[in-house]
């Protein structure tokens, strides 16, 4: 009786703590609701979606070329790998293949992004566990890689360097030299990080036996990448379904044995060394040749190839053929100079004094009512009518047709064959898959991403329950998630 009453009075409940979305250690905007009994975790509920930008849905309204920059914004820590994954998926869909040199360049930049990603992972993981100096050491090398990115494409973080069918531009010689220097020095830098933590008693205490997951369970949870390999499953897409130049280079897939935080840490450290090795081999074997596939129907060709005829901007005039014009107003909206006037369903008119000869109205018009004549700026109406009677020179017609075709190609995208397709690549965080449903147009009917971060975030409760609050931080670090990719 008394005991029962006492129990009623001294009833204990779990403390409910909201970790995130604003929290220094949840790597962005992950929100975890923890139920803790003292310091022991009883229940973890991850909430995702705070960084949802609808990338999958956006992809449906953009052509295959236009959706490429969206993939940068997924895993912004290793944007290059995402770009490559997307490009390879679209290339498979269109049935084209990148030239050899582009493949090697992509392998190089992909492995660079793996190193950059693992460096950031190590930096934040170590910082979360309290090793502050490792953080800054890692950033020193990551900065070097970002500078190298800047050298090839001008951007550091959201690069958009690979293209469907190859890469944007060839790499400069200075880049290769600087990268070679980096690969020379990097292994000694890894040793530097390891000096601080690898054998550190506190580090071992904090990582060994924490977040243990067996090989079978890890596979069942859908883990991929180093997070899975730490449990001893040697699954690596680069090895089993080689893409780009991975079948032409030698590398090993490091695996762990215990499946704990320490093993996953070791796996990533060894992986960085392997990436370094791959980059060196690629630089040595880099073949000469073009960097863009010769498939003008499916790829964006280099600018000089795209515009074989001089663009007819100067020395021409545009006017509206009143018989053809339906007065839809499209050209009015497209004109940057507001030179086109007219009412609805009545022929429009171009004010020649204002016209910039930009050809926007010319490519916009659906009814081909825009006529092009050799001339110049500010022609009078009489002069125009006179010019229109004369036949238009051949080269101007050709150029105009080319311009329209180019515009259509960019706007509507390459004609992809109908069907479904799933292509996966090994990004630093795991298996990044692109699933396309194509209806034969230049835009995907459905674009679906298999984001490793999302699947790993789902594993968090499994890894945390029974451990202490401090281990949640270690668990978030060890699965290596980026919320941009998780929420898409």
């Amino acid at each position, binding site marked *: 009786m008394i005991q029962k009453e006492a129990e009623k009075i001294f009833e204990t409940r779990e403390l409910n703590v909201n970790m995130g979305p604003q929290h220094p250690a949840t790597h962005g905007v992950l929100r975890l609701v923890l139920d803790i009994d003292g310091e022991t975790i009883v229940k973890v509920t991850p909430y995702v979606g705070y960084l949802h930008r609808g990338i999958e849905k956006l992809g449906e309204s953009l052509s295959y070329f236009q959706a490429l920059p969206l993939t940068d914004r997924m895993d912004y820590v290793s944007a290059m790998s995402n770009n490559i994954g997307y490009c390879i998926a679209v290339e498979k869909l269109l049935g084209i293949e990148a030239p050899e040199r582009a493949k090697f360049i992509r392998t190089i930049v992909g492995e660079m992004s793996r190193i950059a990603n693992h460096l950031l992972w190590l930096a934040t993981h*170590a910082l979360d566990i309290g*090793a502050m100096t490792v*953080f800054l050491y890692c950033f020193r090398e990551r900065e070097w890689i970002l500078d190298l990115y800047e050298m090839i494409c001008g951007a550091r973080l959201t690069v958009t360097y690979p293209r469907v069918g190859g890469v944007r531009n060839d790499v400069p010689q200075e880049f290769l030299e600087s990268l070679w220097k980096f690969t020379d020095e990097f292994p000694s830098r890894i040793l530097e990080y390891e000096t601080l933590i690898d054998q*550190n008693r*506190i580090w071992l205490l904090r990582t060994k036996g924490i977040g243990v997951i067996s090989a079978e369970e890890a596979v069942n949870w859908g883990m991929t990448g180093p997070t899975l390999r730490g449990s001893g499953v040697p699954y690596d897409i680069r090895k089993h379904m080689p893409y780009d130049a991975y079948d032409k280079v030698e590398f090993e897939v490091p695996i762990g044995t215990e499946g704990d935080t320490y093993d996953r840490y070791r796996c990533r450290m060894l992986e960085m060394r392997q990436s370094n090795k791959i980059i060196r081999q690629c630089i040595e074997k880099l073949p000469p040749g073009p960097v863009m596939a010769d498939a003008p129907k499916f790829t964006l060709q280099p600018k000089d190839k795209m515009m074989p005829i001089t663009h007819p901007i100067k020395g021409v005039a545009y006017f509206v053929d009143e018989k053809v014009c339906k007065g839809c107003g499209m050209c009015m909206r497209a004109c940057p100079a507001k030179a086109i006037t007219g009412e609805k369903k009545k022929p429009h008119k171009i004010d020649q004094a204002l016209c910039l000869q930009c050809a926007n109205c010319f490519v916009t018009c659906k009814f081909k009512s825009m006529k092009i004549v050799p001339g110049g700026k500010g022609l009078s109406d009489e002069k125009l009518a006179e010019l229109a009677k004369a036949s238009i020179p051949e080269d101007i017609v050709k150029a105009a047709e080319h311009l329209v075709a180019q515009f259509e190609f960019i706007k509507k995208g390459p004609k992809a064959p109908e069907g479904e397709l799933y292509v996966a690549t090994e990004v630093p965080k795991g298996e990044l898959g692109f699933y396309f449903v194509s209806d034969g147009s230049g835009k995907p009917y459905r674009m679906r991403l298999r984001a490793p971060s999302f699947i790993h975030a789902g594993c968090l409760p499994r890894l945390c329950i029974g451990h*202490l609050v*401090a281990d949640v931080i270690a668990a978030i670090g060890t699965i290596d998630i980026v919320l941009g990719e998780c929420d898409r």
Partner: protein
Amino acid sequence: MTPEIDALIKFGINVLIIIIKIAVVLGVGLLHVAYATYFERKVIGHMQVRLGPMRVGPHGLLQPFADGLKLFFKEDILPDKADKPVFYLAPVIFMAAAMVNLSVIPFASNFVIANLNVGLLFVLAMAGIGVYGIFISGWASNSKYAFIGGLRSSAQVISYEIAMGLSLVGVMIMAGSLNLTDIVRAQQESIYGMYAIPQIVAFIVFTIAAVAETNRTPFDLPEAESELVAGYFTEYSGFRFALFFLGEYIAMFIMASMATVCFLGGWTLPWYITEVIPFINYVPGIVWFLMKVYAFIFFYYWIRATVPRYRYDQLMKIGWKILIPIALANILVTGLVKILI
């Protein structure tokens, strides 16, 4: 002149001297805190291949004043559901408990504000009161992170206080006094010159316990930013935050001074050094005292730049299962040796 007036004048002069001493210690103490932060940022910065503060003044020398001004003018945010009076009181208790300790530390041979005969116990007692500041700040904030931080901190400080107190017992036995000045004198007269040599075990235990006592890495769990945002002072801002900050750095200075006074011979140098280099005697004692203190503080910073953080249960294990038994064994051995010799 009657003896009463004479006594009164004497008393007045004594009070004046004490006030001047307090002003000096307080001024130097606060200035020390300001530059201890600068020193920390510079040391850690250079260890981490960066420069540390460089912008305010030459080599960032004025940075501490810029920081202080910023904290002073920041908005003082009061959480809606905080327990207001207690919330206001907590940083004051924390800071006062730390600052009071400055009064018993002998900086030089005759420079101590209050020459207490239980100086050592006083410091331990004040460290105990400081825990109240931490704990009630965690409680009054009405925030879960602050609450966990407060709980962690009180458990940690109480456990490590035991280890620290026990490690100092060896020193007490050897010196035969609790007066800090006497402890220094006893060290000077002993053949070792400093107790760090015979009491090496106690010194190591004290050093570890002192790191835990001041909530520094690797024992900075109460304010582990990756887990608890900022621990017990998560909800504090502006000048109240600055009080916690000041208190922490003063506590660090106190712990370094305690190590200097109890183990490293305070303001004195061991006889085997002064014998070899006689002119070193002309250097004032305060210089040696501060050098030892700063060496100890540098050691704190060095640790912070090097090691990761312990987990809560591991920290408790170290405290109770390793440090306390070692300290007890040390007392036993010291006592036996004292009886035998």
